[in-house]
Structures are given as structure tokens and as C-alpha cells.
């Protein structure tokens, strides 16, 4: 009986699309009232960025530099609006100064999604080198960070990390591994 009901309920929503990592990001941002999403784009983030633009809930736009986006969401936080920044590994590498002089000392819950390049099939040596600087920078500032590799854990990681950042007033970096996103490969 229980099995039959389960089958029925599955059949009742055959149009339900499978969960995607970018769908989880979008839903988790909404659930946590995060409306402001400046970004410097990345190939892997394309669908997420497109979907955020298409959703009137979000104010999303490109910035010239990642540091600028950090400044914008920091100001918005102090004005009562929550934000998150999207970027690529090489963009994160430009942020040590602003993390150490704004986000950390002023205790701003900066939420960053970093699409990880430079590993698991990287074809550009410079990208793989810059990737190696990311975790040491995060660790040297004792910043919370998680590397998301599995879809089944992803919603838990994103939702809990956002809530922790806000309640503890501390930045967090969510690194999106190629294991989660597929990454960027040479023929793309």
C-alpha cells in the first residue's frame, strides 16, 4: 500500500525536473532572503546567472571586479539587504585585501560562490596555479569554506552555510567543485 502510494505520488508529478546545483543555489538564496547578487561571470555559472536574471526576485548584475561586488554587498548588508557574490577561482585570488580589511574586521556575512577552476582536468597552467592560492588564503584568515562535490549534500551545505554566515556575522566561501558542476573542459 505504502509502496503503491509512493508510486502514485511519483506519477502525479512527472514534470518535476531533476534537482540541479544551480536550482539549489537559486532556491537557497530565496529561502534566506538574499536578493542582491552581483557577479563576475564564469562559463560554469552561465545557467545560474541566466536564471537569476530571469527571476524578478533578484537584483543581479555584473561588476567590473570581484572586489567591487564585495563592496556592494557589504554596503547592502549594512543597509539591511542581503547579498551574495558569484565568481571564478581567479577572481577570488584578487580578494585578499578586501577580505582582510573589510569583510573580516567589520564582521560582514559575505557569502561567496566560487566556481572552481584549476583542478580535475584544467587545461590552463595559470588557472591551476591560481587555484592553489585559494584555500591557503581562506585558511590564513580562518574563513569558513566548503568545497561542494555532491548534489545530494549541496542544499544542506548551502542553506546551513548561509544561515551560519548571517547569524555569526562571518564570511563564507562555497567552492563549487567540477565534481558538482562538471567544470570547464578544453573542448568547451
Amino acid at each position, binding site marked *: 500500500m505504502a509502496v503503491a502510494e509512493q508510486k502514485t505520488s511519483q506519477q502525479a508529478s512527472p514534470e518535476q525536473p531533476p534537482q540541479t546545483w544551480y536550482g539549489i543555489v537559486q532556491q537557497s538564496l530565496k529561502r534566506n532572503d538574499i536578493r*542582491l547578487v*552581483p557577479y563576475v561571470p564564469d562559463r560554469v555559472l552561465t545557467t545560474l546567472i541566466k536564471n537569476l536574471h530571469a527571476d524578478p526576485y533578484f*537584483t543581479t*548584475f*555584473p*561588476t*567590473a*571586479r570581484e*572586489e*567591487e*561586488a*564585495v*563592496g*556592494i*554587498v*557589504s*554596503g*547592502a*548588508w*549594512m*543597509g*539591511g*539587504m542581503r*547579498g551574495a557574490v558569484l565568481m571564478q577561482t581567479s577572481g577570488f585570488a584578487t580578494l585578499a*585585501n*578586501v577580505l*582582510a*580589511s*573589510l569583510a573580516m*574586521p*567589520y*564582521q*560582514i556575512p559575505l557569502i561567496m560562490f566560487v566556481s572552481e577552476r584549476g583542478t580535475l582536468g584544467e587545461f590552463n597552467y595559470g588557472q591551476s596555479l591560481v587555484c592553489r592560492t585559494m584555500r591557503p588564503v581562506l585558511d590564513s584568515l580562518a574563513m569558513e569554506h566548503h568545497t561542494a562535490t555532491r548534489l545530494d549534500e549541496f542544499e544542506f551545505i548551502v542553506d546551513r552555510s548561509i544561515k551560519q554566515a548571517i547569524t555569526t556575522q562571518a564570511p563564507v566561501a562555497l567552492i563549487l567543485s567540477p565534481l558538482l558542476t562538471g567544470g570547464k573542459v578544453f573542448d568547451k
Partner: protein
Amino acid sequence: MNVSVNLPSRNTKVMNRFDLTSRLVAKLKNEEAVIGGIGNTNFDLWAAGHRPQNFYMLGSMGLAFPIALGVALAQPERRVFALEGDGSLLMQLGSLSTIAMLAPKNLTMVVMDNGIYQITGSQPTPAAALADIVAIAVASGIANSAWAADEEDFERLIEQSMSASGPTLIGVRIDDKPGTGTTRRDPVQIRERFMHGMGVRQPL
């Protein structure tokens, strides 16, 4: 010591940062936010009299306008002023394009231009001799950008910005004087007090 860069082609009066900041602060009657950029810019904002609606940067050079943009987006009903040095703005010229694209009408930006990195020993900036920051702002898409000819013109441009239909940038030539005061370097308290000033939080 007079190391200010001579700019013979420019006929705007050379003014003083603290005087201009004091003139701006004297005009604020509606709990307007003011973001002070790194160094002398926020030292003079502090010296002009602390207000809960002031935010003082202790690092992250170049981010006064982006931070102010964030406040302006979060609180579209509140007027937001940002005070930035010319050397700082040179670090984030791209932010002018972002501000032009979003076009918040409640944002007024002031660039304090002395052509030097005063606080590090008065070395000239790369823009000192030739680049025109107001022209750069106009070319970035911020149509309401102008040099203030003198103090009265500065006050007029500030007033004008308060009812503008888009963001405003005001360039002012200033002398080579250092900041008048020194901001208390307590970042958590600065941020918390600013959030109280923005009405986002109540004190414990």
C-alpha cells in the same frame, strides 16, 4: 611644503577637503548616509563631527563608491553620499560603469582630487597631469558629473544632486593638506553604529 600638482589648463578653485566635508555635513537634515573613503577622506568626515549615519573605511582602498552603491540599493528612499579620493577612485574606475548601469538616483559621489597620494608622502598619482576624472565619469555613463568651480558651486551641486533623476558625481580640486582628525579605528563599532544609523538594528 607645496607639492600640489599645477594644473594650468583647469580653472577650478583649489579648495580644502575638511572645509568641503564640513559644508556637506552641515546640509544633512534627513539622516543621509555618508561613506568616507580610506585615509584622509574619512579622517575629515570624522573631524566634521561624528554622525551615526557615517561609515568610515579603514582599508579596501577604492571601495567607497561600491559600498555606497550597496547602501543606496538597499535603501532607495535614503540619500547616500560617498566621499572618495582621486587615487582611490583610480583603483576602481570600473565601478563608475556599474553605477551608471544601475543608475541609483539617491547616490551622490564626491571625488576629492589633489593629484597626489597625500597620506603616503604626497607622490603624484598617474592621473595628476593629464587624466580628467569628471570626464572619465561622464564617459562611464554618469551624465550628472561636474567639477565644482568653488565652494558655493560645490554647495549648489550637492543641493542639485538631492533631486536628480540619476546618480551625481562632483569633482573638487583640493589642496595637499592632510586630514584634520583621526578616525577611531574600531571596525566592528563603526559598522554596528552605522547599522543603527541606517535603522537596520537597535542597540542591545
